[in-house]
């Protein structure tokens, strides 16, 4: 049963992790994109629709990635090329995404979807506990873990990662060093959009293979919170996503066991826990200062 619960937790955590890891890269480059919810829901409707039409959930997931990236391009063009305010543009992107996805998905309502199959890793999936948990999951789960470690490696062990971080820390001096600030930020935003799109596809192809309006139900916002919660460190995002998943699944189990606490309090627990952990982490001033991208949310226009 413990194993089963862990499986549920990983199910709940995967879309959060994916969206958050994408947003982490975006924020590390100094851009704050509050449109995660909008990009996620676009990914969800695309993934579902394309999988339904082609009968192939893999093509659906791929399409979700592409559409998520394209949708984020809109944000990138406005905030990076036209230097609009990032907070407002992100919120507008969410509004647009929720509306557009509803329009696109009108004919998908009430149709059962195509589930992304589980892929067993030979031999390893036979292992006790970790076998089913880690090596017998769907492709998007593998992608989420791979991306987390990939991003961690990229950010801290490659030159390109260093460049991206320097853009986020101080775009003026990065520009002075001849780094193409805008280009790097475009790429980061596109990556974030692709990740959010895939996170949406996880919802509509794995979690609950169906399409309904607003099915992301605020998960994009939680992903945003996770990035800050993790103080912009990929592995902490991983931990945070699973912690958040564990608390929200745990409260359902507590209820099923008949523990008589108001269910609203249990539902509020993940949020309160996030604040508490955040306070604990951020008390260490030095650590957070080092990790926070100093240019976050600031517009950049190169002087010529």
């Amino acid at each position: 049963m413990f194993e089963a619960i862990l499986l549920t937790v990983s199910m709940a955590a995967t879309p959060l992790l994916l969206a958050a890891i994408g947003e982490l890269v975006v924020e590390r480059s100094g851009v704050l994109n509050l449109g995660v919810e909008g990009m996620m829901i676009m990914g969800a409707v695309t993934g579902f629709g394309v999988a339904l039409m082609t009968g192939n959930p893999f093509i659906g997931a791929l399409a979700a990635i592409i559409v998520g990236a394209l949708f984020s391009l809109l944000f990138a063009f406005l905030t990076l090329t036209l230097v609009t305010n990032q907070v407002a543009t992100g919120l507008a992107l969410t509004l647009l995404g929720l509306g557009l996805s509803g329009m696109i998905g009108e004919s998908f309502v009430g149709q059962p979807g195509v589930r992304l199959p589980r892929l067993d890793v030979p031999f390893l999936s036979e292992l006790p506990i970790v076998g089913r948990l880690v090596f017998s999951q769907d492709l998007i789960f593998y992608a989420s873990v791979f991306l987390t470690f990939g991003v961690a490696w990229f950010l801290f062990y490659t030159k390109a990662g260093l460049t991206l971080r320097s853009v986020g820390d101080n775009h003026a001096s990065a520009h002075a060093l001849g780094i193409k600030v805008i280009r790097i930020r475009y790429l980061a935003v596109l990556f974030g959009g692709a990740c959010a799109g895939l996170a949406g596809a996880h919802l509509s192809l794995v979690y609950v293979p169906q399409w309904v309006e607003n099915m992301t139900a605020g998960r994009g916002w939680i992903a945003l919170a996770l990035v800050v919660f993790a103080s912009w460190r990929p592995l902490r995002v991983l931990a945070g996503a699973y912690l958040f998943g564990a608390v929200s699944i745990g409260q359902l189990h507590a209820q099923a066991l008949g523990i008589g606490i108001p269910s609203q309090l249990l539902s509020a627990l993940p949020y309160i826990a996030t604040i508490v952990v955040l306070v604990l982490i951020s008390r260490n001033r030095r650590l957070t200062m080092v990790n926070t991208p100093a240019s976050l949310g600031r517009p950049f226009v190169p002087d010529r």
Partner: protein
Amino acid sequence: MRLELVKRQQQSTLFSALSPFLAFGLTIVAGAILFAALGKDPVETLYYYFVDPLRETWSLHELAIKAAPLILIAVGLSICFLSSNWNIGAEGQFIMGAIAGSVLPVLFPDFQFWFVLPLMLIMGMAGGAAYAFIPALLKVRFNTNEILSSLMLVYVAQLFLDWLVRGPWRNPEGFNFPETRNFHEYAILPEIWSASGRAHWGFVFAIVAALVLWFMLSKTLKGFEVKVLGQSPRAGRFAGFSAGRMVVFAFLVSGAMAGLAGISEVSGAIGQLRPTISPGYGFTAIIVAFLGRLNPLGIVAAGLILALTYLGGEAAQISVGLSDKVVRAFQGSILFFVLACDTLIHYRVRLVRPAQKVEAAHV
């Protein structure tokens, strides 16, 4: 070919005035294309969207009702955003203000005097401010990121309200349905001009708040402090301003405004507490604040315009059968146009041909 921005020496007054019209023009064109593509008559749809809600008095009242909370919250937020305090939890402060303000009519229904309403308004402001104080305190004391803490507190506030109206504050005569008792007459925010519609004094509060904060921002030292600390905390320190105190000040002001909006909405428009009292006013107000360019007077205009798109969206749904999703997508694109056009105020846009650059390099 690509776009290049050149920063203007100073804000362009021409484009400051022109940009809203430009954005509106683009919106009309995009809307017409969208509606035509959906098989609707574009002219008729746009008419219902932008003109129909303004034709009748009752509808103007509704516009004021819808705009009031947006304006109130957004002017408070402008103080936060100008001082670089990213309070995105106004929704939660709105709810807590509504709860704190409702203590009297819900728990002491027999306590009926004329001063109940003023007390409620004060308690509402206090409730919102107190709730906003949490992220402010965490930021000052522990350096906790306020974006996250204020956002998380929204969910907590929503669940707290939910628990209250389903549990301890439930109307004893209400068949166990999740709502408090209806407010008595002394607890109802009166209508401004009840002969013509049901707009309540919340709209007046919003206008007054906008004027007061506009005055503060543009004419007083405090306003200068807000802007200096927002643009450069270092410069602010040299000027002798305390960044920590500014965090608290900004959050308290915006929390109080959101709380006032909350209790006004509950007391003026709803008349009781319910599990959901806000369709996301706290978040929409963030957009309003930026549409109004963080200027309280601009925010009044922005709030009215955004309210118009809600009303117009409904009119278009009913009259030409435009779906609710199209309305929301259209709303999103309006915002994009407005934001994009405002770029012209600060920047000149130039088209650059890469080919030319190469030639120049050769020479």
